[in-house]
Structure formats: structure tokens, C-alpha cells
């Protein structure tokens, strides 16, 4: 009979199927960071001068900041001089044009990743912005969206076409001095997505951005800004993959969401960056600042994330609940296996009266994976009758993985209520035996238990992606089972 740890190791072994490299000529800046690099990036993107000045201000601030070390992560020092801060496919020039002009090699890359950019083949009702290294290469369904009044384009394009909107909103939720990686991003960000939904408009389709890192020794620093005016609705999804390389690559993004009165933003992430090999070589460092502000009364922001990739994940999608009666939600599944580490969670900052937040975090650790939930709930002085409920569950597979929970609570208003529930469980030998004695294979049993554990979160994903997320999880944890 096989001994237990071997069987579980097999059950969680898998191939990373998005690890191929696209062979395409790139215009890549030499590694290193100084003011001339920032001026070059800004010039390539033909940005207005105020943007350059903002970048330089952020850079000067960043240089003075210490590297954060408070996360429960074992992270080797990063040499910021060894990273290239800008890389674009040569054929691309600057910014996306119509689909006919996109390099066929790039179209094939996205096709291979299961993201056809050809509108005929695309998922019905989903518009895609494809970001390849430092530039957006294509944005689909722009005409249909424009008819509804929705702006959906690359952020570099928005800086040229809608500078006033960007100037008004960018940095208003995550300022350049917010944290180390946000400051770095504010200095060197290259591309990302801009979404603007005018007052009263329900965005007619799901919007999504697909991020792909291709070049070696290159960081990806994208910036996403979503503004939902009063009474509007939008649902947005991002997906991420990268080639298998034995170096670590940095991905330091900033995402800002702004919801005005009665507006609703639903932001979903399926993150599958290359996690590194079994010995912990290579993989993406995913250090991301994501924050939404419920600026208007009765506004609603919900974050849903399925995090299966990256060598190290460090992110806390947060909500500032400023408007009265506003609602913040965070639903998360984070999987670590092999040598992966994740320190992730959320911050719910209740400022307005009668604000509500819900946090559901599901951490799954297999192999030697380490998973930490870190969450802050702050009830401000004005937050009369504010409520939070946090549910934080950890599932351990095998006996070498770890789960950690770091809840923080600050309550300044006596009428506010904060609830925190946490559980930790292990997929036991007895559960696998029970399932197998009923005729299920070990893979089916693990899949069934893990999917049962995550179903509350999968329910929150847009339907087209819930099935994908479930499959991704199966592949992540099962290897052999297709």
C-alpha cells in the first residue's frame, strides 16, 4: 500500500500550462531605475507634462521609503536595479489600434491562453483589454461599449484622450505615498485599464483585462482605474499568466475603484501567475495595492479573488466605506502549494453611517504552501450602526503546509458591530478513505472536498468564470485529473 504523503504529493502535483514564451521582438529598456527611465516611459506614452511631474514626485518619495517587512512572508531582497521597467512588442508601437493591426503572433498568444481577441470568437458579452508586458495590445467591443457611453480603454490611451478624467481620479484612492510598491507603481506604471461608466448606465457586458508578462527580467506595473458614476453598474474581471522562468519577476500593480451614489462595482480576479517550480525557483512576486472607495451613499463595491498562482502574493483588496449605507464585500480563495506563499486579506474602513461589510476568506494550503489571512476592520467615529461579518476558513492538505490568521479590529463607535469567525480543517485520511470506499478516486474526493470548501466564493464570480475557476482549482490541486 502507498504511504499517505506520497499519494497527496501526487494529487497536488501539476503542470503549469500557461508557461510558454512568445517569440516576439521587443523594445525593452535596459534594467535599472532613475529619473531618465521615468522620462523615457512618459515620453513613449506621449503623456501630458503634469503626469510626468506626478511620476517624478512619486519616484523621489519612493527612493526615501524603507522596504516593508511586516508580512508573514519569506522574501529574498529584490534588486530594483536589475529589473527592466518598460518592455513593448516592437510591432506594437505605442498603444492599441484596431484588431487588424495587432501582430498575429500576439493574437495567437492570447488564443493559446484561451482568450480569443477576435470578436467573432470571443465569449459572448465579455469585452477584453489585453495587456502584454508594458502595453495594452488590443481592446475588444469598443464600439458597442461606446454606444452605451462606457469608456473602456488602455490607461495610456486615456491619458491622451481623457486627461481631465484621469487627472481628477487617479491617485485619489491610492496616493503615491500610500506604500512602497504603490509609490514605485506611481513612478513607473506603464499600462493598464481605464473604465468609466457614466451616470445611470448599466454596463451592457462584462469587462475584463488579461495581463500577460512575457519578457524576462521585466516587471509589470499596471494601473487600473474604474470610475462608476451615480447609479451606474459595472462588473470587471482580470486574469493573469506568465511564462515559466527560473528568475523571480515583479508584478506591482495599483487598482483604484470609485463608486458614486447608488453605484455598484463588482471586481473579480482570477490570478494564475507562474508560481515557480517545486524547489521554489522562479515565479512571480505579486505585490499589489487594490482599493475601492464607496464615495457616494448606498454605493456598493465587491471584490472576488481566486488566487492560485505567484511565488509570493501580497495583496489586500480593500474598501473605504465613506458614503452612508454603503456596502463593501471581499470574497477570496487563495491556494498555495509547493513553496508558494500568500499573505492576503482585506481592509474594510467604515466611515459612513450604517455601512456594512462582509468578508469571506478561504485559504487552501498544500505541499509546503504557507497561507496567511490578514484583515483589518476599522469602525470610524461616525460609523453609527456599522456592521461587519468576517468568515475566515483554512483548509490544510498534507502535514507540511501552514495556515495563519491575523485579524485586526479597531472600533471607535460603540454602536458598531464586528463579528469574526474562523475555522481550520484538514483533508483527513478518514475523509479520503470514506469517499474512496464509496467508489470515488482520490482526485475526485479532493476536488469534491475543496470545491465544497470554496463554493461560497465561486458563487460570487460572474457565471462565465465560475466554471473556469473551478477547473483551475482542479488543475492546481489534482495534476492527473483533466
Amino acid at each position, binding site marked *: 500500500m502507498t504511504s499517505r504523503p506520497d499519494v497527496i504529493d501526487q494529487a497536488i502535483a501539476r503542470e503549469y500550462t500557461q508557461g510558454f514564451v512568445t517569440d516576439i521582438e521587443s523594445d525593452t529598456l535596459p534594467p535599472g531605475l532613475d529619473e531618465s527611465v521615468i522620462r523615457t516611459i512618459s515620453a513613449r506614452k506621449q503623456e501630458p507634462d503634469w503626469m510626468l511631474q506626478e511620476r517624478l514626485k512619486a519616484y523621489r518619495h519612493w527612493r526615501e521609503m524603507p522596504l516593508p517587512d511586516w508580512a508573514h512572508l519569506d522574501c529574498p531582497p529584490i534588486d530594483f536595479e536589475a529589473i527592466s521597467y518598460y518592455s513593448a512588442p516592437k510591432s506594437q508601437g505605442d498603444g492599441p489600434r484596431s484588431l487588424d493591426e495587432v501582430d498575429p503572433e500576439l493574437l495567437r498568444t492570447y488564443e493559446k491562453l484561451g482568450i480569443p481577441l477576435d470578436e467573432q470568437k470571443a465569449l459572448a458579452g465579455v469585452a477584453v483589454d489585453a495587456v502584454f508586458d508594458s502595453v495594452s495590445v488590443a481592446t475588444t467591443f469598443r464600439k458597442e461599449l461606446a454606444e452605451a457611453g462606457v469608456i473602456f480603454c488602455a490607461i495610456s490611451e486615456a491619458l491622451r484622450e481623457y486627461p481631465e478624467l484621469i487627472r481628477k481620479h487617479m491617485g485619489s484612492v491610492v496616493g503615491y505615498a500610500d506604500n512602497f510598491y504603490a509609490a514605485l507603481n506611481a513612478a513607473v506604471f506603464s499600462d493598464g485599464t481605464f473604465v468609466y461608466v457614466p451616470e445611470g448606465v448599466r454596463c451592457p457586458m462584462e469587462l475584463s483585462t488579461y495581463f500577460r508578462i512575457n519578457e524576462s527580467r521585466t516587471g509589470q506595473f499596471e494601473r487600473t482605474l474604474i470610475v462608476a458614476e451615480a447609479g451606474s453598474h459595472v462588473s470587471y474581471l482580470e486574469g493573469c499568466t506568465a511564462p515559466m522562468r527560473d528568475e523571480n519577476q515583479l508584478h506591482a500593480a495599483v487598482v483604484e475603484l470609485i463608486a458614486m451614489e447608488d453605484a455598484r462595482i463588482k471586481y473579480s480576479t482570477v490570478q494564475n501567475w507562474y508560481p515557480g517550480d517545486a524547489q521554489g525557483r522562479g515565479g512571480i512576486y505579486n505585490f499589489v495595492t487594490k482599493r475601492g472607495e464607496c464615495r457616494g451613499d448606498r454605493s456598493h463595491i465587491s471584490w472576488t479573488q481566486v488566487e492560485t498562482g505567484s511565488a509570493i502574493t501580497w495583496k489586500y483588496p480593500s474598501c473605504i466605506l465613506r458614503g452612508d449605507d454603503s456596502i463593501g464585500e471581499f470574497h477570496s480563495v487563495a491556494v498555495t502549494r509547493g513553496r508558494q506563499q500568500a499573505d492576503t486579506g482585506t481592509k474594510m474602513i467604515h466611515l459612513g453611517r450604517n455601512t456594512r461589510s462582509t468578508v469571506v476568506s478561504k485559504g487552501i494550503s498544500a505541499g509546503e504552501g504557507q497561507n496567511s489571512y490578514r484583515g483589518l476592520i476599522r469602525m470610524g467615529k461616525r460609523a453609527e450602526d456599522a456592521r461587519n461579518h468576517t468568515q475566515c476558513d483554512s483548509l490544510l492538505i498534507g502535514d507540511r503546509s501552514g495556515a495563519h490568521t491575523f485579524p485586526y479590529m479597531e472600533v471607535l463607535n460603540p454602536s458598531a458591530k464586528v463579528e469574526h469567525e474562523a475555522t481550520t480543517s484538514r483533508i483527513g485520511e478518514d*475523509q479520503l*478513505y470514506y469517499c*474512496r*470506499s*464509496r*467508489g*470515488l478516486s482520490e482526485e*475526485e474526493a479532493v476536488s*469534491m472536498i475543496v470545491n465544497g470548501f470554496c463554493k461560497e466564493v465561486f458563487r460570487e464570480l460572474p457565471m462565465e468564470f465560475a466554471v473556469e475557476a473551478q477547473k483551475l482549482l482542479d488543475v492546481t490541486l489534482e495534476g492527473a485529473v483533466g
Partner: protein
Amino acid sequence: MSLLDIQDLHVSVDGKPILDGISLRIEPGEVHAIMGPNGSGKSTLSHVLSGREGYEVTAGQVSYLGRNLLDLEIEERAHAGVFLAMQYPVELPGVNNTQFMRTALNAHRTANGEPPLDAVAFMKRLREQMGTLQLDDKLLKRDVNSGFSGGEKKRNEILQMAILQPRLAILDETDSGLDIDALRVVADGVNALRSPERSMLVITHYQRLLEYIRPDHVHVLAKGRIIRSGGPELALELEEKGYAWLLEDAA
């Protein structure tokens, strides 16, 4: 051909011998009861037959419908028709009870070259069995065994057995923790499944269960060996006299 033929089976756990040469033959349609004091090896026998890891067979063999049972993986034994109703059914939080049974049945069907049952056909089959076991519909919506009472867990085991229609049903202390009403319901469920093709191995500490499920043969297991075999009257004798006299005889 016998359904199950156990010959001189020796089993150790962590190097410690638990079963010390058991031989037992079960023909199709027969119900055998295994009785014995605590620690005699009854549960070990049930887990070895179902294939649980951690039990080392040091000697002997087990033939099931002519195949070497000990060569098969746990799920292969299930597909071949071996079913163990467990003494302590395991909770599977997050896994829906109905979904679990349907997945299990379809795993059997696929392994045996039959097309999987769709949800409608499955629900029809499930409803037919629910009545006999007086199970509340609510249990179908709950997670497998999660928060079930002791009696509900045992009835849920018998429901799975009724759905999977095994050739060899092993009932490991199915009566433990049941009150007399629940015991009668479980026994009715089991009796409804008796058939000329299906054999049963009923493991129990007390004679009580055997008043409702009448065995064809009764065996007494003590210190890892079968020390006495007989007809149903042996169970009554044990009820009256306890195990002590047999143990002395054996020593």
C-alpha cells in the same frame, strides 16, 4: 463459486498482530454475523476487506468472486460491489449529500461500463429508497453527515447502500448508538435489501440487532480468531451467558 472466501488471514497494525488466522466462507445470499467482545478484531476485519491503508496483511488470502480482493484499490473494491457501512461515518463539510451519492453511483456505473444517471433519474431512485428509511428530505440538502444525529448517520449509510446495491454489504456495528425505534428502521432498510445475490456480513457486539436481521450463520471472534461458529441459536446463547465461558473454553 463463493462470494467471499477468507483463508487463514493474518493482519497487523503498526507491527502488532490483530487478526491471527481467520477463515470464513460466504455464499451468495447468505447473512453472516460476527460477534465478539471489544478489541477482538471485528472492526479490523471490516477495514481490511474494504481496503483501508495502515493494515498489513502478513499471511493468508481473500478471494472475492474469484478475484484476489487484497490486490484491489479501495475504490476498485467498491466498484466490484463491496460496501462497508461504517461504525463512524465521516463528515464531509461543504459536500452536498445528494451530489455525493450521485457522484458515487456514477463512479460505479462508469467503472462498470454503464452510462451515468442524470439528475432526474437519480432523484427518482433516491426518493424510492428514502421512504423505507424514513429519512427527512432535509438530509438531502445538507452536507454529508455534517451535523447529522447518530441515528441519521447510520440511516444515511444504509441509504447509500440501497443506492449502490452492493454484492457484499459489511455492516460494522450499525446498531451502536441507536435507540430501539431507530434500530428497527435501520433493520427494515437492511432486510429490504436481502436478496439471493447479495450477501451480508453483520458485525455487532450485541445480539439485539440479530433479532431484527436474522443471520444464517453466527461466528464468535476473540483475540483475532474465530473461536466458535454456529446457527442463529449461538447468538441467543451468547446473550444469555456472555462471552466469558467461550473465552475460557478457547484458552
